[in-house]
């Protein structure tokens, strides 16, 4: 059984995870303070999806990977300079906000449109990948809506593994409660997979892959379509940081016995 797949990965950028984030409220609703100054990375779960896609494509001759990304063009360009060396893909860039405060459904509508505009798209070969949640909105809703809009009825979230069975069916491991995985089998594409971490290590930087990717990524960035989100269905009442510091009670002069008793009481509570 040899099928060439068309794998479309949806993934945008998020602030580098170690940055200090602070919400501010602007005329267009909440945003991050100095959002454009914060270094960005490809959303971690979407990165896993991308690596899994590349790996899957590598093992099915003739397959191809696209990365559909909605974000501010300048930031996307910068992030591509680390991502593009990892695995081969063709970039489809949409120039718009990457904020977590946008509505998942609106983002999904734009992503769907971008996917549908891929020339020669064949649903019988189509696998739509993405992160199961973003590190910004963290809703885990965008991909389902993309799938629904594309009419894909076989969807999986929190995916940690995708295997191709000899008969061409797909075997998928999804994260469920209690640290377990649900194992499902889907007869054939199209299917949509929202990835958790998967099993692959981060691919090494490959300069040749980078050179090839940039041949299409630069033009894609240059002609990235500016898009706007209406943001009308969602109203934010407030966005705030949690209280950072606790009031620490320092217990200094108690005997070890008393302390142990207090701790055991607390454990059993």
């Amino acid at each position, binding site marked *: 059984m040899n099928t060439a797949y068309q794998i479309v990965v949806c993934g945008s950028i998020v602030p580098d995870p170690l940055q200090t984030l602070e919400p501010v409220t602007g005329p267009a609703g909440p945003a991050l303070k100095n959002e454009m100054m914060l*270094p960005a990375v490809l959303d971690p779960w979407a990165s896993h999806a991308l690596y899994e896609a590349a790996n899957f494509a590598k093992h099915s001759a003739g397959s191809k990977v696209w990365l559909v990304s909605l974000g501010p063009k300048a930031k996307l360009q*910068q992030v591509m300079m*680390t991502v593009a060396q990892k695995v081969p893909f063709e970039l489809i860039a949409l120039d718009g906000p990457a904020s977590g405060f946008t509505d998942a459904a609106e983002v999904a509508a734009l992503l769907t449109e971008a996917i549908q505009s891929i020339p020669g798209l064949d649903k019988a070969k189509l696998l739509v990948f993405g992160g199961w949640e973003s590190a910004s909105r963290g809703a885990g809703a965008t991909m389902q809506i993309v799938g629904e809009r594309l009419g894909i009825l076989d969807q999986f979230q929190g995916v940690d593994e995708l295997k191709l069975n000899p008969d061409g069916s797909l075997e998928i491991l999804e994260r469920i409660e209690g640290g377990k995985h649900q194992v499902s089998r889907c007869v054939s594409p199209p299917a949509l997979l929202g990835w958790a971490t998967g099993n692959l290590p981060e691919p090494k930087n490959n300069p040749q892959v980078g050179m090839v990717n940039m041949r299409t990524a630069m033009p894609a960035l240059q002609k990235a379509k500016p898009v706007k989100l209406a943001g009308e269905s969602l109203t934010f009442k407030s966005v705030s940081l949690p209280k950072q510091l606790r009031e620490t009670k320092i217990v200094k002069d108690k005997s070890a016995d008393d302390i142990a008793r207090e701790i055991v009481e607390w454990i059993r509570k």
Partner: protein
Amino acid sequence: MDVDIVCVGFGPATAGFLTTLSRQLLKADGTPAIESTVTPGMPPQILCYERADDLGFGVSGVVTRARGLRETFPDLDPKQIPMAALVAEEKVVYLLDPIGASRRSWTVRAADACLRAFKGLLPLKNDALELPWSPAFLHKTGGLVLSMGQFMQWVGAQIQSTGTVQIWLGTPVSEALIEDRNVVGVRLLDQGVDKQGKPGEGFMPGMDIHAALTVLGDGPVGPVGQQIDAQFGTPENHHSRDWAVGMKFVVDLPENTPLKPGTVLHTFGFPEPEIFGFFYVQPDRIASLGIFVPSWFDSPMRTSYRYLQHWMLHPYLWRYLEGSKLRSWGAKTLGESGRRGEPHLAGNGYARIGEGSGSTNVLTGSGIDEAWTTGTQLAESVLELLKAGKAFTKENLEQSYVSRRRTSWLESEARVAEKSRDGFQKGFVRGMVGMALAGLTNGRLALNGEPVPPYQRIPTLEEYYRGRISPEEIDQLGKECRIKGVSLHSALMQRCGWPAIPYDGKLLVSHQDALLLGGKVQAPPGYADHVVFLYPELCQKCGTKICIELCSGQAIAPGQGGVPAFDREKCVHCGACYWNCSQSVPGNPERMNIAFRAGTGGLHSAEN
């Protein structure tokens, strides 16, 4: 892989190079103005490899006259660049020691006593004297206060959007490829190796990138620059022996701060006379501030972090800083040898630009503009050679690039600066006088004092603390710290009267917290350690272990059997360990016992 030009490092020097170059590679109609030799029909293929994980993570520097920058960007508007402001006010401030713990020579002490005695006459406030006048050579009038990180992102985006240059991030160059004394390209770092560099899972040997021209802009401690120096030697009497590590905080000033954007303060005198401080105010109540700890501060207990905290707590500064919040933190080496450290600027197939080419001017305290300008000069030369169809030979590069550099303001100012700091070799007061003399007489006068290699200047702990802490006590404290696996300077400084730092969780935080909250330091797995102790037996015998004390990230800690342990995940690639070692290696009096190689990771802040 074959390309036309490969650049090592994306600092201001390479940014100047690529900005100038990328503007002239395409005609208005988008067709190549110059053709590539490796992919005919296309413009030259130009790659730049930067080891840091993002644009602007590996740089520092904030106030500049911006002469070179303005030549490239005549309409430069600071408002386009986040955190940039025009210089508005400059002050030089002498800080007295309000604590009495700093080590001041009798001359400094006498001067301090005078200042305090004439308190009524002098504008002495907050234990500091604002100099009523400062020499013109220090002025940055008309210049800019910048966040180099933000500036580099701004420039980087412009360069890349031309589509003619690719700047690959998180990709260190391990070495230059040399064939028959020609540099023919670079080799990237091996991936998928263990700490010692042994191949492991997913091993991918560093790829060779062949290029007609290799541009070295890897900064003051760049490993490729080191390799070239080792391979081709340095011009006679040129050596890099003067160094400093600059450590900085970027902070949010309190809401009611009286400081205006564009304010520039330079301090000296405290926490130790040898330590200089800077404080630059940016828009939106942001300030960048920090200190320089130089190699000629003859102390085995050099630590930048602890000193930086004491400096911030000086009453003159603390009145501005109280209530501030840490945004970013970082450290980086400054090559202070300037023109005296200048290597061969070009050879067959390569050219050197930026601080690693000796461009930094210590007298004027300026490196960015100079680095940038070396880059633009090289770019103009490269365009000239490409258009003339000439090869990148040593001769051709010397005729174009080197001669351009020699006839520019870079050279004349570097000559003035060349000897200006030698006075510091013999003490702080002499140094200050020497610097003033050289600056005011355009280099005609200077106080001599040939710099010696840094390791020769490091006294033993016992010598340094003679009369203050007994050898037995030093030994005892040393043992305790080794058990805890921590450096020794805090214990010794405390013992000498430096008060404990009153942590507030906002600005005054532990060193580890600064790494995380400010520097956001991290390192990807699968790369070899880039800091290596070359001769472990030298470490075993080493008494000061200054590498541990000085390490900007606490990445070097006491290790097994007396050999320090290195933790890549805390290293900020400041390069200070490269010149902070108390032992030279056998057979090379200019090289010390730590190898500083190409490595990944480090700071993840784009605000420094």
